[in-house]
């Protein structure tokens, strides 16, 4: 049984560019949450998707947007990248509001 998968594993972008990160949830899970983990810090909640709608959002600007597909997979989009967006982006899946299980993350470096 595959766990949560994320792609790509690493990504390098320059300031002002746009990036799309992808997540496939664990089998049987219908909810996807995204977190940003800056170096040396704990993860910060970005938003959560359930039934293809954003259900809750953290304190992140509108440059951060997402989408959930009918197969429950999800994308995180970040526009107009800033140096401060460099971080590990973690996807977590769950069955509704039950326990969240995390993927390996995508490490984004903005130059």
């Amino acid at each position, binding site marked *: 049984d595959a766990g949560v998968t994320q792609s790509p594993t690493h990504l390098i972008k320059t300031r002002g560019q746009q990036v799309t990160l992808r997540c496939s949830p664990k089998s049987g899970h219908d909810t996807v949450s995204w977190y940003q983990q800056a170096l040396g*810090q*704990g993860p910060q*909640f970005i938003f*959560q998707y359930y039934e293809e709608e954003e259900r*809750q959002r953290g304190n992140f600007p509108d440059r951060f947007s997402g989408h959930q597909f009918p197969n429950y997979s999800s994308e995180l989009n970040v526009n107009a990248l800033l140096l401060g967006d460099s971080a590990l982006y973690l996807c*977590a899946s769950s069955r509704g509001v039950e*326990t*969240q299980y995390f993927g*390996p993350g995508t490490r984004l470096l903005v130059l």
Partner: protein
Amino acid sequence: AQSVTQLDSQVPVFEEAPVELRCNYSSSVSVYLFWYVQYPNQGLQLLLKYLSGSTLVESINGFEAEFNKSQTSFHLRKPSVHISDTAEYFCAVRDTGRRALTFGSGTRLQVQP
């Protein structure tokens, strides 16, 4: 708003010694509590969780944590650590009526031979 405080950023300990990683939270409502572990260059793995029932919860690899509502704490303990326990440990809380996890800043456990 809820918050999580992990008082120790680093905890060095010798192999086979006991360890306690401290976690305190603040919330005005009922909460669920979690400990996650992160090995270098990896994502987070769920270590254990408290949802309801017994306030003492255990993991399969010998860790345990006790929910103390009066002290708003959820400290993680292990009676005898191994080199392989070296990792970053994150305490997290979620309001029962909300969806987001709030994490502490993490504690780096360094097990020395």
